[in-house]
């Protein structure tokens, strides 16, 4: 196995529950996820499978009071995030990890100008804490905006978010995330709310930044095509569990888990050939999830063992792990 040094983030057996009126929604059910230094990791899954919950638990920005973590560990550079003090968490959020959210319109505050919002991020990140002069902050904001290819960055600083288009807003959000050096970027569906040509531009920009700065990135997406083009390793998530992880080449050529297979077949292709029938059934209820494998109700190859115990991640080859008992037969 890899040495500890080059593993940046390591999530082990993470469970997250949300409290609702009728009990607990058992959303995450043993998530294992690992990011090496300088690696681009993709997290793919359908809506409501817990992608964003996983990311929010890394930064500990889950809705306060409504969640419960019965077990699990999140190691960032060898330190458990779940046991960090408030101060340590603040420095983690301001200096180490940055998150880019799905909807740039909601991520930016509409009553403050862009300059204030970027300036705040720079002010609270350590890199410029000693000389937090207005001029320095402005310089840094302009530099960040230039880096994301926004035209006329000086004028951009005095604009309100509503004066910008969706693509430009997302660029501003990326500028905020990279305005100070970070070791890990979390991009939560950065192109989903944008048009396909703009989405392409945003993805190219992210790729360029990651390459230039050698940061690690976790890219959350529900589009398998995006994951293939953007990442070094892909995690496929279903109903709060990681079902398969592999490099894109292996995953698209040789998917093992029935869910991955069904998902790959459902993607329409520009070379034609029709669309497969999709996956029957729907996501299980998080309030009363089935015991054992959470995919068993929709799986065509289920056996008695599937409902007894949830399958651990079996290693098929290096970097190709599958949570399915089929691999053991």
């Amino acid at each position: 196995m890899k040495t500890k040094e080059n593993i940046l983030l390591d999530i082990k057996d993470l469970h997250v529950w949300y409290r609702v009126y009728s009990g607990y929604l058992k959303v995450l059910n043993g998530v294992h996820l690992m990011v090496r230094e300088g690696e681009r990791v993709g997290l793919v899954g359908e809506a409501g499978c817990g992608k964003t919950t996983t990311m929010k638990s890394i930064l500990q920005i889950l809705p306060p009071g409504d969640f419960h973590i019965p077990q699990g560990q999140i190691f960032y550079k060898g330190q458990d995030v779940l046991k960090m003090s408030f101060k340590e968490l603040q420095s983690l959020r301001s200096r180490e990890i940055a998150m880019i959210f799905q909807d740039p319109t909601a991520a930016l505050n509409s009553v403050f100008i862009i300059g204030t919002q970027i300036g705040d991020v720079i002010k609270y990140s350590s890199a410029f804490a000693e000389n937090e002069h207005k001029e320095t902050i402005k310089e840094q904001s302009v530099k960040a905006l230039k880096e994301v290819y926004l035209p006329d960055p000086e004028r951009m600083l005095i604009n309100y978010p509503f004066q910008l288009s969706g693509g430009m807003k997302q660029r501003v959000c990326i500028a905020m995330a990279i305005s100070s050096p970070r070791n890990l970027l979390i991009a939560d569906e950065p192109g989903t709310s944008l048009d396909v040509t703009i989405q392409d531009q945003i993805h190219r920009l992210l790729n360029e930044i990651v390459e230039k700065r050698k940061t690690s990135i976790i890219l959350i997406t529900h589009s398998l095509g995006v994951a293939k083009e953007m990442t070094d390793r892909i995690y496929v998530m279903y109903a709060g569990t990681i079902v398969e992880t592999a490099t894109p080449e292996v995953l698209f050529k040789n998917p093992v888990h029935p869910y991955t297979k069904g998902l790959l077949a459902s993607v329409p292709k520009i070379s034609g050939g029709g669309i497969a029938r999709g996956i029957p059934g729907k996501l299980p209820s998080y309030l009363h999830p089935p015991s054992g494998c959470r995919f068993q109700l929709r799986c065509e190859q289920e056996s008695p063992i599937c409902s007894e115990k949830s399958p651990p991640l079996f290693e098929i080859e290096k970097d190709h792990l599958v949570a399915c008992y089929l691999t053991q037969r």
Partner: protein
Amino acid sequence: MKQATNNEILKIEKLKKYFHIGKDKKGPIYVRAVDGVALNIKYGETLGLVGESGSGKSTIAYTVVGMYRPTSGQIMFKGKNIGVEASRRSLFSKKEIQIVFQDPGSSLNPRQTIEQILALPFRIHTQMPKRQFRKKMVELLEKVELSPDYLYKSPPSIGGGEKQMVAIARAIASNPSLIVLDEPTSALDVSVQAKIINKLIDLQKEMNLSYLFITHDLSLMRNVANRIAIMYLGKICEVADSVTFFEKPLHPYTQMLISSVPVITEEEKKLKPKKVISIGEIPSPVNIPPGCSFHLRCPYKMSICSKVDPEMIEFSPGHIVRCHLFAKLENKK
């Protein structure tokens, strides 16, 4: 293209829809959402209408179903002009044209049961006595693979894919011949999308429906549409059948769109034109650039492009493109 053919169920000619948004010194300001569009749909065909947000594709859909009155132009449905708002249309044309909206969460009334939702088209479009409704509704639900007990459920208690199935059932209740599908699957996951799309294709064969399928997802279009039309800032850029469209895209904008699609197989990669890298953003439809509206983002820009708006050219039979690059070729011939 020009000659009248009687195998067209819908023929849109010179359709314009301007929205008045204000006034300045020069006069009223308009959003030119649809600016001179010509399209036709044949019987039993699926026409895919693709464009970025703000290109006016939904405005065309709403004008076809009569939610808007066109500023000018004609909408010929089965040979009759229906270019007016729905309240002035005949009941027959309303029965024949139905629509499925993008977000089933807001197109179905959450306070009604599915039974109430599905009963409305029968009450309006048939003379059937009320007691026969239920039998018909169960048949409808069977068609979209939902069990009869869904009649007593309400939209918030069922999943997104099922809601869209109910919306489709409502659309086919009046036995229409043309259905406008306004991004029916863009709010859904791919595995659910596959199910809905297959159902729509089955229904098309079974009921001999024609579809006007609006989407921004090109790879979906490849598998669903017979012909594809690309829209940019209220105008059509290119129309072609779906195979030619992906194998020989002509308009630079089409090439840009196809090269932006994320793909998963090697086969698809080969289809992607490599050269065109997407730059810039779609301009506001209030200030449409002079000349060809695409010239600000076009990599093959010529001096004529910023002055003259190109004409529609039939490049090869059934393959229409609106670009100066091909006008030249035409003249040389």
